[in-house]
């Protein structure tokens, strides 16, 4: 079960002709797919399109009613491959994953798909994870469209434009027999707005129907000599067809005056940022009515030479607003101008920074710089000669600490890394490779474990060079999400086949947790439409790995530590894998908290654990912090003139996972921690017995208190 439920929002997907939809970008995308008569959907979760997968999963019932198949694909390659259904059958299909990493994984399938060409519309919805909030390397998906020649759509970031582009995109795909990729950026996925709905369409041919009437055509298979024909077909037929369609349908948009000495070419997704900068320069009104001509590329690949040259006609300066690098669009447009012998001065990365997000400030500076060069008379007086003095604001860069993401309160991965720290203290530092997922936060303080990540499911594979062994064993960490995504084949068969002597730790938290808690093969939950509860250890046995240790409660730090130590020191040769399992606390709390509250309300007996620190016993050395980093384990300053350093303190967000106590014990830190289990609705006998005990204890305490001086404890 995903961490966010869209059950309520899914109702909006049933809206019909004439009704108005209000909500988030990804929901609008889903609605648009249904309106376009899609026949099958799928994908693999990952920010910023995780919620799109969650919406589809929650909408499964509605999809089934419409005859639409939903597949939660094993990974992006599987999702890309699924679009094969549109090669021979006139069925529209859509898959979604994140860019650029998801596209990397899918690229094998996408390249084959693009070569074969499609009959039914094939759409890949890519959440471009670039700029603020991104969790991956900063690259562009654009290059994939160029190398495999599928069309890249980058609509203006508002709901009506995005929804229209889904429908136009399918048409374009079918008109040019080419798959299309619809790109949405992080903020467009979450942007809210409204659009006018149409009725949902059942697919003309469902995937079930297709199975009854199978088709094949060897000219579609990527094998010589057909593969040569595919390349010719792309250039001679599909590409011109796409250009024609884009022009005729008017997918790219023009705004502003027809006549001007300057103009701006902008990726659709950057449109709002450009308008805001123009608004601030007094060159556009609140509704985006601009005084500078804009050529908005809602289709960023292919670029259409004629259309662009027409836009440039009569202009002296043209600016290209293209986020990210390399500047593929600017380079291509420059070559169009050169081939046409044009004198237009082309600007872009000379004014914009080559690398990094185009923030409001960057956009404003670059546009102002462009107009200053091209037509300075346009700038308002205040911008032309700024004279207002800005007040000096104190520099806080040394004060404000960075706040990178980390493990949640009660995360079951924390004790695994605390245990690794303890083993490191005994056996020294080891070569450690990490994977993709929450566990990668261990690379940051306080743990600083893991030196590299090579991709999803590739953690143990990244230690391949060390498989031959040495004095110390290499260690790899991988999550259960990574294990099933690609890890079993790329990492574990690699270890097994090459007789690796290394250690791999599988962090099994029952979900693909970092992407929002979607189910995976080994999830413990019952899922009516998916096969879950397949143990990781069984898969490992299947690929010939026999040294497998399962730790089913990661919070047992001592056991965790001993198991890791055993893996690193056992004389046994061959791969050694530890499967460390405990449920993701975020999901567990979401599941259990309402049940617990309900039970308490209904008068049933419930034990609620939480940890605390005796501030009198804590010396403020913060050794526990260096093995935890838990958000609920914090510091507080005591009102005690004798104390210099703040002491540990556990706030009420503690979920009682046990890590503090276990670590204090296993690392022999200090006796400051205690766990308090509050028993709600205790039984009659239990209450009486507890009362009796506490009366005896109180009597003993009082007895001692009356015979000596007692001081109030600072807390």
């Amino acid at each position, binding site marked *: 079960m995903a961490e966010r439920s869209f059950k309520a929002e899914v109702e909006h997907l049933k809206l019909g002709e004439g009704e108005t939809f209000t909500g988030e970008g990804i929901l609008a995308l889903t609605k648009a797919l249904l309106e376009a008569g899609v026949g099958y959907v799928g994908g693999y979760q990952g920010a910023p399109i995780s919620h799109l997968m969650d919406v589809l999963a929650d909408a499964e019932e509605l999809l089934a009613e419409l005859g639409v198949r939903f597949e939660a694909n094993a990974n992006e390659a599987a999702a890309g491959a699924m679009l094969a259904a549109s090669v021979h059958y006139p069925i529209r299909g859509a898959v979604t994953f994140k860019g650029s990493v998801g596209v990397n994984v899918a690229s094998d399938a996408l390249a084959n798909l693009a070569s074969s060409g499609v009959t039914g519309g094939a759409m890949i919805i890519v959440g471009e*994870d670039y700029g*603020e*909030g991104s969790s991956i390397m900063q690259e562009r998906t654009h290059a994939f469209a160029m190398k495999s020649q599928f069309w890249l759509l980058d609509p203006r970031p508002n709901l009506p434009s995005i929804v229209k582009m889904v429908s136009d995109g399918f048409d374009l795909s079918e008109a040019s027999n080419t798959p299309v990729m619809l790109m949405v950026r992080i903020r467009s996925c979450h942007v809210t707005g409204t659009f006018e709905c149409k009725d949902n369409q059942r697919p003309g041919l469902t995937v079930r129907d297709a199975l009854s009437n199978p088709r094949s055509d060897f000219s579609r298979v990527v094998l010589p000599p057909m593969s040569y024909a595919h390349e010719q077909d792309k250039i001679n037929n599909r590409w011109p067809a796409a250009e024609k369609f884009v022009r005729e349908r008017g997918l790219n948009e023009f705004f502003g005056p027809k006549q001007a000495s300057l103009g701006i070419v902008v990726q659709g997704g950057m449109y709002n940022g450009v308008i805001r900068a123009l608004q601030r320069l007094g060159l556009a009104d*609140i509704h985006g009515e601009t005084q500078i001509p804009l050529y908005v590329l809602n289709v960023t690949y292919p670029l259409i030479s004629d259309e662009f040259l027409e836009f440039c006609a009569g202009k002296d300066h043209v600016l290209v607003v293209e986020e990210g690098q390399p500047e593929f669009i600017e380079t291509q447009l420059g070559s169009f101008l050169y081939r046409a012998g044009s004198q237009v001065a082309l600007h872009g990365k000379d004014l914009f920074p080559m690398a990094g997000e185009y923030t409001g400030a960057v956009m404003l500076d670059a546009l102002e710089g462009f107009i200053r060069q091209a037509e300075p008379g346009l700038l308002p007086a205040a911008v032309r000669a700024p004279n207002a003095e800005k007040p000096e604001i104190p520099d806080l860069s040394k*004060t404000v600490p960075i706040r990178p993401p980390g493990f949640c309160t009660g995360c079951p991965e924390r004790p695994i890394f605390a245990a690794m720290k303890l083993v490191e203290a005994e056996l020294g530092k080891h070569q450690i490779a990490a994977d993709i997922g929450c566990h990668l936060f261990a690379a940051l303080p306080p743990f600083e474990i893991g030196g590299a990540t090579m991709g999803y499911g590739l953690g143990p594979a990244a230690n391949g060079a060390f498989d031959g062994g040495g004095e110390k064993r290499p260690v790899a960490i991988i999550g259960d999400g990574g294990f099933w995504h690609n890890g079993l084949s790329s990492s574990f068969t690699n270890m097994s086949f090459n007789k690796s002597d290394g250690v791999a730790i599988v962090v099994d938290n029952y979900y693909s947790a970092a992407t929002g808690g979607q189910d995976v093969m080994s999830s413990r939950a019952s899922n009516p439409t998916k096969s879950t509860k397949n143990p990781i250890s069984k898969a490992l046995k299947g690929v010939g790995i026999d040294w497998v240790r399962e730790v089913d409660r990661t919070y047992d730090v001592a056991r965790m530590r001993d198991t890791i130590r055993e893996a690193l020191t056992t004389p046994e040769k061959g791969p050694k894998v530890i499967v460390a399992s405990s449920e993701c606390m975020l999901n567990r709390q979401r599941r259990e908290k309402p049940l617990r509250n309900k039970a308490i309300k209904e008068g049933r007996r419930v034990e609620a654990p939480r940890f605390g620190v005796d501030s009198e016993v804590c010396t403020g050395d913060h050794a526990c912090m260096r093995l935890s980093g838990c958000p609920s384990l914090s510091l507080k300053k005591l009102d005690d003139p004798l104390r210099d350093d703040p002491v540990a303190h556990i706030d009420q967000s503690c979920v009682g996972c046990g890590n503090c106590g276990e670590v204090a014990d296993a690392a*022999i830190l200090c006796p400051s921690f*205690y766990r308090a289990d509050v028993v709600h609705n205790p039984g009659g006998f239990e209450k009486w017995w507890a009362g009796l005990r506490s009366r005896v204890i109180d009597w003993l305490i009082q007895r001692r208190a009356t015979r000596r001086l*007692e001081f109030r404890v600072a807390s």
Partner: protein
Amino acid sequence: MTVHESLAPREADPRLGGIIKLAILAVGGQGGGVLTNWIEGVARANGYAAQATSVAGVAQRTGATVYYVEMAPLGEHTPIFSLMPAAGDVDIMMTAEMMEAGRAIMRGFVTPDRTVLISSSHRALAVSEKTVPGDGIASSEEVKAAAEVAARRFICADFDSLAVRNGSVISATLFGALAASGALPFSREAFEEAIRAGGKGVEASLRAFAAGFEVASQGEENPLAEEAAAPADVTGPDHLMRDWQALIERTRALPGDAADMAEAGLKKVVSFQDLAYGREYLERLEGIAAKDHRDGTLAREAAKYLANAMAYDDIIRVADAKTRTGRRERIATEMRAGEAQVMQVTEFLHPRAEEIVSMLPAKMGARWAANPKRMALVDKLFNRGRRMRTDRLSSFMALYFLGGLKGWRRRTLRHADEMAHVDAWLGRVTEVVDRDYDLAVEVLRCQRLVKGYSDTHARGQSKFARVMEGVGLVAGRDDAADWIRRLREAALLDEGGKALDGALKTVRSFV
């Protein structure tokens, strides 16, 4: 080049002033999404077009998150809104934590010409602040001072504890503060309606909303007011109280503000052991104070650190702390356990051979400690984690018994070790005080390095020893005190003492 007539410079569209730009900086898990929904809701319900965006990603775990809302009065056409806040172009900045306010200022989202900054003053400490062995907490005061300069208006209060007190989360109190700020052109009722429309936890949210509204419009109540009326903090039999008073009288003779510190110190050592031990503390302290030929700083620091050194953390102290009056009640309050509930308390203890042997008589203990075989045997017998349920009689009695061993304490190896440490340390102070008063003060302050239990304690002692080595190196120099302060501060920066080793290396390079 021709200038087209239609392109003559113009003033910005006056309607642009109607766009209200509101950004929220929060820490993941604070309910920024809910707050954003409410703000959008109140705008849409009151004749405004609104657009919200957010950057979630992995930051939703514990990192910094950004939400952004723009709104403008509904017209015939939809306005074009931006999807991200721009430096110098934010009307309302809401930050759900004090350092996030600092971050907002650093990013240029708070400017004097336009920005109303609404911030919670509470802290959610970053990992880097918590792991420092010393005090690594960033200064909220610096951020507040910067906010006073940077913001057009600055509304700041602890909206987090205010929310918790009202059984809700910070999004609700911040929403209340936003309503009270008057920065949005909607009535209080309109805001409350948005909460009702949200439909989840409405009552608690409305209560917290009202509290946030109140505090933002009238300022925060002073939390210190309650503490002033604390009950008398020393109780006991009359004869002990009389002796106690006598000791307190003696502290009055100490110079400067050392008397107050000595009173706190006395409480600590008497509570640790007994009145006789308190007298010993005073004697030692008076010995140092007699050499205080200046403003009393030496006496004050001696009062502070001598108390800490004499009230060392042994098994008896820990056991006593866990079986004292008031502890159960304190925990029950913190855990919100009332009469209707039963509370079970589990302690996590892990004594090693070192701790067991340190409780033996000094000579015998020293012999045992020097014998690795014997230590291994003791480890085998005792060294394991012990979970003790102190709400049960058996475990309680065991700790109660240990806590009552004060009569035995003075004979133990631990006591002998600690007293040797105190004597050596104070000896060092006495040695340098006549020649270099400031250095003597710094040497006293180095006791701060000795803290923690087991390995942490050993590391602390090793750092202390290394700094004392430094004292030997720099004593006699004009800047000796300054160097010892630097060494001590370096020692508090990291666990292993890397910074300290570096600083010592520097010292060695010039002596």
